[in-house]
């Protein structure tokens, strides 16, 4: 039996991290949590997750974006499937200010809160399920 697939979740909201971990663990994944961008980028290098989920709305504006760019810039993270999390429209829906052309590749945009079934399905679609 092969080892569990690893998922890294980066979010400064501890509750959200905890709840997401519970969901992902029921899906049979090994879950790693990072409470800030810096730790997140470091863990991404050391853990080399199969997939990372990054909150765009962390404490400092743009932190999520910088984490995303930094992970994409590393050798280990340049092809890792990445999901980003946004709070539902703070001012109009996400589509209305679509990401700029040079935005690093994102595999999926999730809106908080994420339904357990949806989250597990998206993850399975991205990295398969063992």
């Amino acid at each position: 039996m092969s080892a569990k697939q690893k998922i890294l979740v980066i979010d400064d909201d501890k509750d959200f991290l905890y709840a997401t971990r519970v969901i992902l663990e029921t899906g049979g994944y090994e879950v790693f949590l990072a409470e800030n961008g810096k730790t997140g980028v470091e863990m991404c290098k050391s853990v080399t997750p199969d997939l990372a989920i990054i909150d765009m709305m962390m404490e400092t504006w743009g932190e999520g974006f910088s984490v995303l760019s930094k992970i994409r810039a590393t050798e280990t993270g340049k092809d890792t499937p990445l999901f980003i999390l946004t709070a539902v429209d703070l001012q109009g829906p996400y589509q209305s200010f679509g990401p700029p052309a040079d935005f690093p590749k994102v595999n999926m945009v999730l809106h908080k809160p994420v339904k357990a079934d949806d989250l597990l399905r998206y993850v399975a679609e991205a990295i398969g399920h063992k």
Partner: protein
Amino acid sequence: MMNTQKPLFLIIDDEQSLRDGCEQTLEKSGYRVLTAAEGVEGIKIAREGKPDVAFIDLKMPGISGMVVIETLSKDIPDTVLIVITGYATVASAVEATQKGAFDYLPKPFSPDELRAVARRALNHRNLKIETRRLREEKEQMEKGFITFVSHEMRSPLVVIRQYIESLKAITGNRFNKEVADIIGRCSICIQRLERLIEHWLDLSRIENGTFAQKQETLSLSHIIAKCAEEMAPLCEKTAISLEITVPKDQLTIVGDEESLVRVFTNIISNATKYTPPGGKISVSATDDECYVVVSISDTGIGIPHDKIPFIFDPFFRVKGREERHRGSGLGLTYCKKIMDSHCGMICATSKEGEGTTFVLKFPTHFSSTGTASPTPPEIDSYAKLIKDS
């Protein structure tokens, strides 16, 4: 507005005796007084001293009182300006008022008359300042409250919902049905609360003008088709037929697609709540040179006649209704506000037991005539003229 300092008056008049007389009278009433013998000096003193009230003689050597009034009403709008005139003609008083004076005092006047006008001017100034302060405070509070609600109230809700989702994931099929049921009910309640906050925020944003709405040329036919597609599953589920009779690619208006889609889906989904299975919802539309008119009718239970005037009020509900799916209570209020912002109209007619019809009326858009202007006509100067008549 409480001033700790005594009120400050400025007298601009070329007559020494009049200046002295005014100064004595006003000082005796406990006011501070500055004086100037002509217009330019008066403007200079006024700009520096920012008096509460300035008395200005219309006829002076050098620049006229009218010019002084015009200048000061722009420079120091909080200072109340009173015209002193030997030629108490209505025409000159009206002109001075238009240029920003609050009142006028015809020569000759008694100390009592002067004091009475001074008191009135001070009251006026205090009210003016107080009104502005309150308005600013109100706007600030509204803005702060919207930010508060959107961040502080929504974040914990999002977390609670996520926790409920994780609970669902943990329990899966292992726990008994009762537990799963309770989790499900909690989830529905939280979602309702979230939707309520969302709708309330939208309404607040529309009210304070921060709700981003586009102004695009749109085809209502396209919007209605989109809504019909969106609502089809719900209608199917509730066994209600949805009939659309709308001309293709016509019905051109100017507005915001996203909010209009919500208006129509709101009304249609409302209709599904009050229409029994087997019923029908029909959407039809016509346009002429002035208006695009859309009607949405259902064969539902209807709204009592005396309740119709209130259905667009926030949180209004017809009592004694068994509702299959409770909404936020703000749906129709939202529709009304969006219609207002499109210079349109929305109204309802209903017969109990037979059904309800909502009629939405939009100004027709013609590419040649440009967009309809929602700006009211200039009434500013007129309002100034009549405000103290």
